[in-house]
């Protein structure tokens, strides 16, 4: 496979995942518009914006971030994340970027994948956001989530499990790992720190991560911080747990470069293994309340920082290893 094609697949996977992640967070938030108290809604927007790495809305200089979200209106906040073409992380931009990558991948992608992605993009590009908002704010993002899941299903059903698939999945799960790390960290620090008021519930985090039902089956209906975090970090069967994403990343790396998975390890594989080990050892630092409370530097935050740093390193190493390698290293022996 061409190195450029590998990069396009990787980025296509990332953009699709990013769009879905944003749509899912928005779906949760806009559903809450019906009955959630205003301060909780503002906090929800703050968490979403922080987790997505978005700048807070414009506000007077003496207004802090939390207040800025209180002052902003939901229509503008949602619009920026859905339909704002100038926002590089809005859904329409990311969907468009995924389509742009897919355009370069027409020879590799099944027609069904291209058509589903293209139809979805044309739909969001042409949708009338103000009209949809007037009707029912959550409808549009809910349909976006449905369309993206349809795409995921078509990808699953039609693509061969070769390197085309692997680079696409690699992008998808690297993106998921980074986003989930950020979301868990933001929810823990900003959304639901101990004793805060207002506060977001841990069961809502499970719902955002489409993991509530599984959690209830495993741990009952009481969603507590330590159990939820451990569940979303370490459970290998939850599609949005960090461990789930890392296992997929490892699996794809082994498939792409079977030799690189034995010694000497290729650099991305080395970092992926280190991340897996970190997640495996994370239990104590996350759930040990005494340790957490005694430590001012906030052990959990360190863990997430470490995971975020290695996640970003993994991305860089993947590009260096498979796309931007020096020509002299690529010559046939």
């Amino acid at each position, binding site marked *: 496979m061409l190195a450029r094609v590998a990069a396009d697949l990787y980025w296509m996977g990332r953009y699709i995942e990013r769009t879905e992640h944003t749509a899912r967070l928005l779906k949760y938030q806009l559903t809450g518009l019906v009955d959630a108290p205003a301060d909780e809604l503002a906090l929800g927007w703050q968490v979403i914006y922080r987790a997505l790495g978005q700048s807070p809305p414009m506000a007077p200089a003496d207004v802090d971030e939390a207040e800025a979200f209180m002052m902003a209106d939901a229509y503008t906040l949602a619009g920026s994340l859905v339909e704002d073409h100038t926002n590089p992380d809005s859904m329409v931009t990311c969907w468009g970027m995924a389509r742009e990558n897919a*355009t*370069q991948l027409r*020879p*590799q992608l099944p027609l069904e994948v291209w058509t589903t992605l293209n139809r979805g993009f044309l739909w969001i590009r042409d949708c009338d956001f103000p009209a949809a908002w007037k009707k029912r704010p959550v409808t549009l993002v809910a349909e976006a989530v449905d369309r993206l899941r349809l795409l995921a299903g078509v990808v699953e059903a039609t693509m061969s499990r070769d390197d085309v698939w692997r680079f696409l999945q690699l992008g998808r799960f690297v993106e998921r790992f980074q986003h989930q790390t950020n979301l868990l960290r933001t929810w823990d620090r900003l959304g639901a720190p101990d004793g805060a008021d207002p506060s977001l519930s841990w069961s809502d985090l499970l719902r955002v991560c489409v993991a509530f039902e599984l959690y209830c089956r495993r741990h009952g209906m009481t969603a507590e911080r330590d159990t939820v975090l451990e569940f979303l970090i370490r459970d290998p069967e939850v599609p949005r747990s960090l461990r789930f994403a890392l296992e997929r990343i490892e699996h794809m790396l082994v498939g792409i470069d079977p030799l690189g998975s034995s010694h000497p390890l290729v650099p991305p594989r080395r970092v992926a293994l280190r991340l897996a080990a970190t997640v495996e050892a994370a239990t104590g630092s996350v759930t040990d309340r005494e340790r957490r409370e005694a430590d001012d530097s906030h052990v959990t935050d360190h863990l997430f920082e470490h995971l975020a740093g290695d996640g970003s390193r993994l991305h860089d190493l993947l590009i260096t290893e*498979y796309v931007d390698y020096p020509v002299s290293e690529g010559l*046939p022996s």
Partner: protein
Amino acid sequence: MTVATTGTPTDPAMGNPGFETGDGGAGGNGSVVAGSGAFADYALDPRFHDEMFGGDGRPREACRRLSEALDRFPAEELIKLQEGVYRRFLHEGITFTVLGADEVSEQIIPIDCVPRVITAAEWDHIESGLKQRLTAINLFLRDIYHEGRSLKDGVVPPDLVLGCPQYRVEMRGVKVPHDVYVAVGGTDIVRTDTGFAVLEDNVRVPSGVSYMLACRAATKRSVPALYREHAVREVAGYPQRLYSTLASLSSSTTRPRVAILTPGRYNSAYYEHAFLAGEMGVDLVEGRDLVVHNATLYARMASGLRRIDVLYRRIDDDFVDPVTFRRDSVLGAPGLFHAYRAGNVVLANAPGTGVADDKAVYAFLPRIIRYFLNEEPILANVDTHLCREPEGLEFTLDNLRDLVVKEVGGSGGYGMLVGPHATGREREEFAARLRDNPTNYISQPVLPLSRAGCFVDGSLQPRHVDLRPFTLHGAEGQDVVPGGLCRVALREGSLVVNSSQGGGCKDLWVLRS
């Protein structure tokens, strides 16, 4: 000088044939065909051959069943058909890119769901003419880059060839695999009252074959029963035939590695490049994917560099290699021509083939055919006046109002003047350009292109059409796919069929018998 051709397709009795004015509408001398449903307003015009109906308004035998079926189609069904085709093209991204001043837009090529029918006998005539033409072109190209006999013998003026911007001195003496300079050719053919004639040869990077296949897929879905009834010859095998042609040119002892070189995503024909790469299962590379090392061409793969044996390049000569040709090109690969000269990679088509589709050299094709093959041309040329010659320039200037004037190296319908449609001021400006640089222009009569039924604004109406079949030339000989891109001038009365100028396309049914 008007270069003599074998039987001009223009009819001297018609004066200024094919003018836009008066074309279309049921008035004038036209008669209405013998249909009462969808064809109720279909007006024939005696100046133009109609592909579906004879002069008496009755359907031609080969089109009888099709015309009867279409006539019975309720208008709303036809609208649904057309919309379905449009939607599918939109969703599947069958588009061409248009570069505007400020933005890039993707447009869907308008597809007409009514097929054009060609009989088996007509196709046999076209096919043998195409093979003859491409054989002669390849012999001519070999000659001008080696011995130059045809130039010495005065078949073509040497200065016309050697002064042609598409003549590549770098190709002199280069051994081209199997002497196949043009592996893929696209020939624009028109039909007038006097028969088929070649309007242009496209032997650099002809495009449009993906639309031929897309049109076929569209009609198979839209009118499956009619398609089955008509015993139409299949075109779906084109990608496989193209691959075999390209692979046959390689000297590799193992399965040759073929790739398509595209200028990239923003090229107007990008969809076609991607489509062909996908159908052939080969890599679609850009210049940035290529590396030349030790006079060998490699593609930059995720797993390291891998050799390429045959490069089907869809970029112009100028951009192939910045070391040899245009220094500012980023579309090709530095050193690629060196690898080609060394015989380590096949380029299809070979650099320098553009001489043969120069519009001034085109005028000499009948002579080239006679010289190299000792045969009479099977397909006629269109009368062509060379403005590089004083009498040709004078004739063109005197008759600008009645002629089409084209740049010798132009394409896509750009840089041309359609005299009858131009304003007085436009003609004056063009005349000044002609006087400044006469060698850059040729002129031809405005042709009365034949018309075919198209579904427009809820009813069937006649529109002018042409045809671009594709000829493949590999190590084992030639191969013409029985079909082609049938282009349609969708604007009423218009003769310009180029997609960049508002043209569309339709399926071409070549019948088995």
